[in-house]
């Protein structure tokens, strides 16, 4: 079970604003999915290594050389607010 308070806390962690009524609805819908995930508890995984990834590779290195990249102008075309070649965002603190 996930409570309404937990929904609100998680909403803050992942930066999704949730109002009171929504939090109630989420608590119900998310709980039924978490119950379903709970069936994983039945599986004996003692000593089983986790698989993060299917590709059988570890670290992928490349030479530290400069290669062509996107033009600054092209990168900035999609932002809501631009100033002096930078992306402008509201203050963070």
């Amino acid at each position, binding site marked *: 079970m*996930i409570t309404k308070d937990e929904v609100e806390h998680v909403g803050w962690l992942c930066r999704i*604003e949730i109002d009171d009524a929504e939090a109630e609805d989420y608590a119900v819908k998310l709980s039924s999915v978490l119950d379903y995930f709970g069936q994983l508890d*039945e599986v004996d995984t003692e000593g089983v290594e986790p698989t993060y990834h299917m590709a059988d*590779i570890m670290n992928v290195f490349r030479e530290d050389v400069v290669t062509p990249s996107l033009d600054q102008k092209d990168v900035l075309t999609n932002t809501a607010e631009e100033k002096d070649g930078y992306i402008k965002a509201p203050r963070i603190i």
Partner: protein
Amino acid sequence: MTKWLSISDVKEKIVATSAEEVTASYLETIEKSSINGYTCISDGALDAAKMVDKGEVAGPLAGVPIAIKDNISTKGLATTCSSKILEGYVPPYDAHVIERLKAAGAVIIGKTNMDEFAMGTSTESSCYGVTLNPWDHERVPGGSSGGSAAVVAAGEAPISLGSDTGGSVRCPAAFCGVVGLKPTYGAVSRYGLISYANSLEQIGPMATCVEDIAAVMDVIGGYDARDSTSIDKKIDHQAALVDDVKGLKIGVPDEYFGEGVDTGTEKAVWDAINKFEEMGASWEKVSMPNTKYALAAYYTIAMSEASSNLARFDGTRYGPRSDGENWHVMASRTRAENFGKEVQRRILLGTYALSAGYQDKYYLKALQVRTLVKQDFERAFANFDVLMAPTMPLPAFKIGEKVEDPLSQYLTDVNTVPMNLAGVPCISVPCGSSDGLPVGLQIIGNHFDEATLIRTAYSFEKNTDHNKARPGEVA
């Protein structure tokens, strides 16, 4: 009657008329369409075709129109993942697969509708509204690459690209009666694919025949340094187009024919397996005991990865920006107002599963179960060349039927998610019908053994008439 053209039909038509005329005729068909398969049409399609006519571009797909799922970046052409949060976003670069397609002469005709951020099995969560199944307009086309499957089935493109995180190419291919391949993890570069669950997903082609699947794979497959999970292994898909399954050993996993599998679907799949026996293959049942936990493990992993991958959509660099007195409020509002409900649910659940105190219980546990699912496949492939099962446990469901209960929709992915957990390649091919709706046979191969997969699917197609069935003239 819907007109289906294969790549070789398209090439013949280009010789008889021109690439420009072929593209123009597809654009005309799209113009009259009522299925809502495209999210946008490329302004540059006719110009690209003209370049082929002038001989400025050549290659194995010269002049062949292709539809692209809306989560694959196309330079200068809107790419939104069918989400309001990417409204107005126009990528400044092409995905690796798009570079390859353009170099091969293909004509990018437009972007196709999908479940928002590829999260779904029905295309109903798109901000553009659902795509209609060409076989029955009251039914979903499947998802999440519903648009890509539906436009091919409706004759609005000869070939398309989708992406498959937990069945998103194979499910709509099955529901719309076309062929769809999910390659081995690492076989196709994900550079430029907007990530949902990066350890699970692959870009894959959809077409009306296996030959076209092989042709597209030979163009888009192969190593790319910009995707650090790309594997340097050469596969010649077209060389595998051989009609011969003599001596092929087929495993039939019991667990994929479990409770809730539609009777018509089960019959069509068994008829297909018996047909293979007639053609000289042999089959045996095999048990894959961890299958029943695959779905819960898959969703736990997919949602956890999604919560991280989708953090970048915060109103800062692209997409709409809501008002807020500081960045945190701005981002929280932008995300609440522009992500759909299903996407919000998955981000919330993923964040919860990764949060302090729950990480071992959910995320780590799911990764351990993933290992067990992978071992099921390793054991099976020690004895069999391929595995066969229904792609979907049921044919296309009605629009609206599973919207209110997310879990009921998740459950329909039971036969497609284990392959993404294990990273193995698989293909869905039409194998008949249930209540007048197409049924897909799923053929599963070992890592990087796409050749056996293509040969098996191609042989089936050559010895049956199932892929000749068209919407409106049910076989």
